[in-house]
């Protein structure tokens, strides 16, 4: 009996080591792979997104999968955020796109950040800016990560921005260089 117990324990240890490499990384985390996360990804209030501030849930035929989040005005004494919680990926750069189509999206200083939480403290790998007001309708390239690490994408709205801010889908295209 003990023989089987030992064998079973060894099997568990072996399976754990074999599968460990794929536990945290996204399945798309390969050169040329891509990940897309919508606002309220697959469900309103999805755990794939996180919100700081009074973002309104709105439906629109022009939006990606028919809906988006909208922040009518900027904060007066804090910073609001809309987050897309992409799985952490190391070893590949991320080319990041934001879907901007609804004509209410008019934040003239929309700022996007990315953090990889595989290290502590989390490393910031993106610090870019998009003028949603003058951006054309569709996927807008916002920038490439500074290091070969990707993770949570945050759209931040500090005090002062006047045009309404839109949060729709976001996309990462992975690249090995």
């Amino acid at each position, binding site marked *: 009996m003990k023989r089987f117990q030992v064998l079973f324990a*060894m099997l568990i240890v072996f399976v754990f080591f074999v599968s460990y490499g794929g536990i945290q990384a996204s399945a798309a985390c390969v050169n040329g792979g891509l990940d897309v996360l919508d606002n309220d990804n697959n469900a309103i209030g999805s755990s794939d997104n996180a919100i700081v501030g009074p973002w309104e849930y709105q439906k629109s035929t022009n939006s990606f999968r028919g809906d988006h989040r909208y922040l009518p005005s900027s904060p007066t004494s804090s910073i609001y955020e809309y987050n897309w919680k992409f799985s952490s990926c190391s070893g590949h750069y991320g080319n990041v796109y934001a879907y901007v189509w609804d004509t209410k999206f*008019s934040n*003239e200083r929309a700022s996007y950040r990315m*953090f990889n939480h595989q290290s502590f403290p989390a490393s*910031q790998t993106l610090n870019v800016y998009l003028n949603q007001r*003058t951006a054309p309708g569709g*996927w807008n*390239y916002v920038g490439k990560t500074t290091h070969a690490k990707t993770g949570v994408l945050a759209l931040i709205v500090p005090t002062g921005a006047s045009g309404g801010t839109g949060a729709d889908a976001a996309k990462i295209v992975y690249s*090995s260089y």
Partner: protein
Amino acid sequence: MKKIIACFTLISCVAIGSVWGLAEWSDIKKKIGKQEEKAITVKVNAATNEVQQKKEIANSLDLKNQEAIQERMLNSYQFFNSVKGSFHYASKDVGFDYTVNYQLKWKNKMVKYYVKTVENNKNAIDELSYDAGELKTIYPNVKKYEKIKLDIKNKGVFKKIGEVVVRNSDGTKEYRYPETQLYLGMAENSLHSKEIAVGFLEEKNLWTVKRTEQLLGRQVVVIEGTLNPYYQEKLMADTFTLWMDQSTGILMKYETIRNGEIIDLLETTNIKIDEEFEVETVAIPTTYDIYTPGK
């Protein structure tokens, strides 16, 4: 006997694990080799692009070639090494009113820049600077700051307009602006006006070059056009006029108009291109806290 069996099992697992590990290591080495090959290819491409960029700089702008005009604005960073100035940016539609001061200098393959945005001629709402491999941003209204390590080695790659707009298989459009690590915040609205270069000027039958003229001592190309229905609804305006610096592609001024009234206005108030000046850096007050979004 049982102990011998247990030991044998343990050794077998270690052996299997080692064989698996060696196989993985071999795969990793192959991948690294492939990545190195790609890196070399990228370097060769970058060198080729640099030659092309220099040719572009040497060429004067053909005002009858609409794509060349778009590409000048889209790749503006490639056409100057240093710039210092300020502009006023306001919208009657959504009610913002900013003054943006900027300084950017490339020298000996090193870059430094500084941008300060002031709202309603009163408070600075953000300040950012890049120096010695670090991009710093402060938000005085909330007493927060951000820092990011960033190794800027070049201005990025010159991109043809035909490579920028892509129609995906699902019918969505994708706008692939040129890759660059020069993140100048609000100053991009004038210094790298990529959204306008691609968006306002996408439909070539809707705009024309009207004339060239002098603005703040610079020769500018004056473009007049009609906004497409998407922008008309979004910006509450019907037409636009752009004043683009002919040599660099910097957007010196733009207006959107409805019924003769200016709705959005960006207007450069002073500018120095490729002259000597010192670049400021952001000083982070000790009372400010670090801001980490995306937790």
